């Protein structure tokens, strides 16, 4: 007898297979716990790595930065004028600033967009470059908080003037002054790649400046880097931004976590940054858009530098030296940004985990759903049903119908923004089994659940490579769905029904995202998350809404349907089979 035969005998002797099959719900739960546990252990010493500049050419802060001394006077001169312009119309403002830019040789044009607001942009042709590549210096007139970005715009202009005197540039520099960091900026980037007449080559990187107000001093710099749809800028760009900021003596904060907390550098601070990072990335496009999101796609690496505080020891030109040194670094690049990581989670400004360390969380989570599906398939009396049985076909066709229906709901909501209806309808469906007396066949209930979980598992698996953050958040919030129980009629008590309804309520895509935002995201109070779903799709092309509607809602609907009262089926097929 071969070794494998021995093993087989052993497995049968111990009765492992039925034991495992019986423990499938437990296993599914175990996998979910492992997934969360894996993530929670990432901030432990030894599980993360220190960041490093992977591309040698970048050499951040190797050249002395000269945006200082009298540039300070110039910057303030511009700022006084911009303060004066802040109340004038966008047209007047753009024309006046375009005049200033032309003084030092920048070719300007105004991109007109009636819907989102006009954008003034100018191309500074690099003297020694070949004119095929460009780096963007962007400063929206208002920032994410709706404050006027007075200093940011003045730094943008003064810095462009400063750049125009340097002969070192190998890439064109494009200065972009859009109305806001969201729709207006995105619409400009899209126009740049479709219809603008004045262009300066393919965009390599973008630095967005956010420094509201006219205060001369600020406290620390926050660096935003989340892209849309799970994209992140190359880690090298974030690294040079952080290393330059720290080199100039400023403190860096990430994801709104305060600098003091970051400087603790213990497990809890790293865990906090990681979790807020995952939350922000999952809600990217829906929360406040800082400007770098607008550049997501087209292989543009973008970060936003945001000055925090009105008092501190850092001067406004110090802030300008960050983009200066970053431009010097990016200018050194002969290739595109490709050396470093594109998928990472930062635990601190100088610590990160790469995709290979965090991806198993999402994988185990999607396995847990697959196990739940398997459980619904084989862990009952109806496992011997042939593949082509009515119940299988019925559940598959229901899946198709719900998929189509959900697509319809997604489209309809984009036109009619009615979150209350959506929520109340979801709640109604959750409690439907309590109210409705209609019965469905028991095997159908199992098959529905099986198809639903299998589909959800597939959605998670395909999403986790592209957008880990959304996949993980979705998997976690939808997990209560797998705990919904289908039982035969005799022990189908009210308690179970109520429990099912509450589980459904918690795992409903709309209610879950509403509760999630209420608990963790102060940027999205009340029903704003639903309006943001629609605007993020329309203005930024962020497909979170469609993932939720098409990837999550059909599964949920089918699970909800399976919780209706059931009656055991007369297993004709099985009898036939036995005869």
């Amino acid at each position, binding site marked *: *007898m*071969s*070794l*494998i035969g*021995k*093993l087989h005998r052993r497995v049968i002797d111990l009765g492992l297979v039925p034991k495992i099959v019986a423990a499938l719900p437990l296993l599914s739960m175990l996998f979910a716990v492992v997934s969360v546990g894996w993530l929670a252990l990432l901030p432990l010493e030894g599980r993360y790595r220190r960041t490093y500049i992977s591309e040698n050419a970048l050499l951040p802060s190797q050249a002395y930065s*000269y*945006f*200082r*001394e*009298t*540039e300070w*006077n*110039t910057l*303030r*001169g*511009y*700022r*006084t*004028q911009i303060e004066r312009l802040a109340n004038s119309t966008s047209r007047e403002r753009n024309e006046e600033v375009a005049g200033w830019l032309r*003084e*030092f*040789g920048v*070719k300007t044009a105004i991109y007109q967009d009636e819907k989102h607001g006009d954008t003034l942009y100018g191309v500074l*042709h690099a*003297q*020694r470059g*070949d*004119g*095929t*590549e460009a780096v963007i210096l962007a400063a929206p007139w208002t920032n994410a908080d709706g404050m006027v970005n007075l200093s940011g715009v003045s730094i943008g202009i003064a810095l462009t*003037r*400063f750049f125009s*005197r*340097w*002969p070192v540039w190998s890439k064109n520099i494009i200065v972009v002054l859009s109305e806001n960091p969201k729709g207006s900026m995105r619409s400009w980037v899209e126009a740049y*790649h*479709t*219809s*603008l*007449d*004045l*262009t300066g*080559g*393919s965009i390599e990187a973008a630095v967005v400046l956010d420094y509201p107000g006219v205060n001369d001093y600020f406290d620390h710099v926050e660096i935003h880097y989340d892209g849309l749809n799970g994209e992140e800028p190359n880690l090298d760009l974030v690294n040079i931004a952080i290393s330059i900021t720290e080199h100039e003596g400023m403190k860096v904060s990430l994801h709104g976590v305060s600098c003091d907390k970051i400087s603790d550098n213990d497990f809890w601070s790293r865990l906090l940054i990681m979790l807020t990072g995952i939350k922000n990335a999952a809600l990217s496009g829906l929360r406040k858009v800082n400007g770098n999101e607008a550049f997501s*796609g*087209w*292989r543009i690496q973008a970060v936003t530098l945001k000055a925090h505080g009105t008092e501190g020891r850092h001067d406004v030109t110090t802030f300008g030296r960050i983009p200066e040194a970053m431009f010097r670094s990016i200018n050194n*690049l*002969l*290739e*595109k940004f*490709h050396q470093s990581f594109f998928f990472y989670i930062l635990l601190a400004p100088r610590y990160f985990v790469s995709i290979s360390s965090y991806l198993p969380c999402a994988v185990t989570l999607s396995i847990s759903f697959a196990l739940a599906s398997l459980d619904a398939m084989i862990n009952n009396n109806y496992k011997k049903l042939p593949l082509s049985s009515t119940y299988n076909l019925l559940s598959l066709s229901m899946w198709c119908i719900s998929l189509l229906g959900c697509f319809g709901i997604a489209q309809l909501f984009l036109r009619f923004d009615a979150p209350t209806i959506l929520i109340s309808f979801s709640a109604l469906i959750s409690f439907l089994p309590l109210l409705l007396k209609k019965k469905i066949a028991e095997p159908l209930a199992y098959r529905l659940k099986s198809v639903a979980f299998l589909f959800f598992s597939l959605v998670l698996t395909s999403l986790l490579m592209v957008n880990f953050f959304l996949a993980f958040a979705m998997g976690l919030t939808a997990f209560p769905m797998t705990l919904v129980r289908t039982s035969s009629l005799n022990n189908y008590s009210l308690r179970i029904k109520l429990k099912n309804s509450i589980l459904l309520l918690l795992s409903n895509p709309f209610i879950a995202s509403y509760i999630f935002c209420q608990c963790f995201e102060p940027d999205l109070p009340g029903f704003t998350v639903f309006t943001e779903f629609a605007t993020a799709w329309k203005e930024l092309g962020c497909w979170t809404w469609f993932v939720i509607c098409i990837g999550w809602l059909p599964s949920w609907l089918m699970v909800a349907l399976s919780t209706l009262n059931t009656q055991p089926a007369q297993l004709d097929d099985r009898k036939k089979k036995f005869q």
Partner: protein
Amino acid sequence: MKGIGIALFLSWLLSLAICDTEVAESSALEIDQDIVLPNDDDAPSSTVVDSCVLDVPYDAYSGSTVVDDQSSVKNVDENTNVEISPSIDVKEEISYPYEEKLMIKPLPNNYLLTSFSFRMDSEEFMPGKSALDYDGYGHYTVFPMAFKPMMDRTATRQLHLRFTRGFWDSESWGRLPHDGFKSGGSGVELWAIIEAESDDQAYKQWKILANSLSGLFCASINFIDTSKTTYPVKSFQPDGQLPLFDDTKKLFLVRAALANEPVCTENLTPFVKLFPTKGRSGISTLLDGHKVFDSSWHSLSIDITTECSASGETCKYQMEALVDVVMNVPNVLARNERPIPKPVAGDKLRCDLSKPFDAFQCFPLPEETKVSYSLSKIYGKQILGSNEISNHPSHVCVDATDDWTAYIKIDDTYFSTDDNCFELKSSLNHDVYLESENTSSVIRYESAPLYVSRSLTGYGQDRGGLRTVFKNPHSNPVKAVYFESLPWFMRVYLSTLKLEPGENCDGDGGISLERVMNSTYYLPAVDRARPTHLEYVITVPANTSFAISYQFDKSLLQYAEYPPDANHGFEIESAVITIIEPSEYQMRTATLLLLLSTPDFSMPYNVIILTSTVIGLIFGTLFNLIMKRVVSMQLADRVQATSGIKYKIKMLKQKLLSKVKRLTG
């Protein structure tokens, strides 16, 4: 400034002294003595009587040969272009058919265009006969020795080579120098007219030509192959008739471009060495790589044509080499003082006094419009003497409005002329001194007849689009030939060609593709063998702008086709627009950078290593699990005793023995 004033005054005194003694015998060039002291406009004492003829070192050469010059000088004034009088007469004195000119022209926004032009002829030769057949001797004189054998061998009748880099700001600077016919797209561009029997033969000769030029100019011209070579049909056509040495053959126009090929000192050094002065005397002494390539825009060009006598008996090659450089004067001057453009000192800030201004803030003023500088400050050195081998002295002209004053400085003496043209005749150091109260006043070139810009559109890695914007700001329609050669890995879909109307496209029944575009020539690409070749005649109505766009697929390359070194994308050469009406003009769009999906080249290695390991592990384990059995020692011994080679040999031996026994017994 004071020193210059004194020097000028001294020179004036000197000239007065010479005037008295040598007026009678001077017959050479006359120089108007409108010498005005810099910074001292209305000092009457410094103005000298007109028609005073001077015979300072300025006028070293004498004799009848100089007479020709004045006509050529006038020519320059009228056309504001460097144009060379067509005939170069070789007189009895030993002088060679060589001419060099320098044109200095201030451009708006404190830019300065310096155009160098060098012109030389080869000795006459008889086509179809080697030097041995007729009573002559092979002799090159001023014509570069490298070129004639190459031209002869490849039967090239015309050769055009361009090295260009930078951004020509046609919106503020106007037309390109020489109407754009002497500058290429960013990178290297080469086209030639080759006499050959067939296409194949022409390509072979072209390849030889490209390889020879590559060696000559240390450029990558040898990378020109069939996948880059096109045969233009409407563009690049030569003016006039070209001689055909062998009537059975035909002329082929062949062209190729290497987009964004870096142009550098390696190319300039052999370029300067082509001139008989070798960069050691005359205006070519200014051509220093550090300065030429530290410019906003520069173009090096070489054109060689074959000129034959009316009878066709004798022919000669004519070569024209041009260097055009645009520099930003304030930046260059500032760099001389401070190599790093650090922030200016507080007391040197120029603030707009009409806006809030104090110790804390300063709204910057535009560049100063009052300047004075000398050419040596721009080029880092002075013009060393003149060319001394030709009967045409080196010629320097300043083409500027009356707001500018130009002097030539010979050693320490300043001179000026009415038409701001100077002839360098001595072997002393020359320098050109420019001064202006208002630099914004410049002679404007006619504005460019058409503005064309081209950009890549699209989102993904698998397809994209090309969009060309045509803008005609003038009140007359413009007719032009659009030429485009695209690499084979851009799979163009001409069916997606469409026109997006821009400004003023509604009038006169609207605008459509059929109305603006006619006689299209399209030669689709062949993978790895031929580029896409697209040429069409386009008419842009007055005051109109529109865009023409089409889509393409990006194909996947074989792994060895990716460049081995730092790769940031693939360069797409610029499109060439040759305007036919209302005036002849040629321009090029910017080059583009095409991103193809680039594989991670270390990935196959990783995959092979990983899969081999995994397969090895799985195979080993599985094989063992399936094939191995666990048995007791006794059983194993028994099995071994009844199987195995030893046992078989023993059995065989027994069998044989028994057979032998049976036979014997």
